């Protein structure tokens, strides 16, 4: 089973602070940036094109976004590791912190809250109070039921975690765009891969 079972989800305050300061520094001083609005609009154009292509079959749109994210995540992790030179996470709790405080911060300049741990400590949720992908977005009636607008994020996390030997299920369980109270992204660790060749790489 995973290495996370013994550890407490919340690590000490000290290390939390240092990870935050570390990420802030990378974001502030070592990152080329673009306007978030441009990013939001471009992603919006991609999603709306997919909705047209799949004739508003939103299950297919969700899947295409997931696959797109997966391909990005597999490469984004390289950039992440090169930038941060962080060591391997010893627990899923640590992974959750690095994802929220470091990865989300460095790439999207937001820090989702980590919470909703499963009793066996093998699954957690990221609560996205801010989501730069979905600013301006108002889902039309037909899309509100099935479309997970930001599903690309699930794919990115899936791809990135897989590259560091973590086989996870990543999916949204709620989205404020659908009228939910929160935007909750669930990460569930299935197993830690052992030097297997990751799927999709030849």
């Amino acid at each position, binding site marked *: 089973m995973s290495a996370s079972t013994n550890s407490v989800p919340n690590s000490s305050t000290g290390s939390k602070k240092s990870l935050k300061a570390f990420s802030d520094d990378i974001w502030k001083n070592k990152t080329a940036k673009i306007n978030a609005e441009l990013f939001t609009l471009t*992603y919006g154009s991609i999603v*709306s094109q997919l909705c047209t292509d799949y004739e508003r079959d939103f299950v297919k749109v969700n899947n295409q976004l997931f696959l797109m994210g997966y391909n990005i995540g597999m490469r984004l992790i390289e950039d992440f590791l090169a930038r941060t030179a962080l060591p391997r996470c010893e627990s899923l709790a640590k992974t959750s912190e690095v994802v929220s405080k470091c990865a989300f911060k460095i790439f999207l300049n937001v820090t989702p809250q980590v919470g909703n741990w499963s009793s066996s400590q093998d699954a957690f949720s990221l609560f996205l109070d801010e989501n730069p992908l979905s600013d*301006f*977005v*108002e889902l039309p009636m037909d899309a509100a039921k099935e479309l997970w607008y930001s599903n690309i994020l699930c794919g990115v996390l899936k791809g990135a975690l897989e590259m560091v030997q973590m086989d996870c299920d990543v999916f949204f369980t709620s989205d404020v765009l659908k009228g939910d109270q929160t935007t909750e992204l669930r990460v569930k660790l299935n197993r830690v891969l052992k030097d297997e060749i990751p799927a999709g790489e030849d």
Partner: protein
Amino acid sequence: MPCYFAIIGAKDNPIYEAEFTNPHLNQFPPELKELNPFILHASLDILEDLQWQTHPQSGAHSGTNSGFLRSRHSSSNSNCYLGKIDHFYGLAITGYLSYGNMKFVMVHSGNANNGSPVVVDDVSVKSFYQEVHELYVKTLMNPFYTLNEPITSPVFDGRVRALAKKLLTK
């Protein structure tokens, strides 16, 4: 005073329309209510002519610096407001042009009972237009909204009506 407001697309197609009334004051007389869209459309030609001129009203500055897009200060949006462009019996028609050639137009009615002429309060009417322009741009940013199509979003409608309550039919 009651107003009838519409956004007209680049091909003179209606994008959005709304009537603002105040239950405590008088309403549009029913016979006039039906005429409103026609009165507006009759004014579009004048608006198009004015588009290429500098309007005397455009020098006026108003300082409504609230909201997220509005915070992009500088006054270059103020020349979108064309002021009173036409009149029809006791009614005044004002207009505003967005850079993408969306026409914002409004019929203002006076007090029908005493027949007093309409007085258009340029400052508040202009800020109404500017705020709606901002809401319009936000709507445009929604990936599910296509340029030049009718705006059906209840959120947009609600916000426009709230603005009208604040600035026009008070």
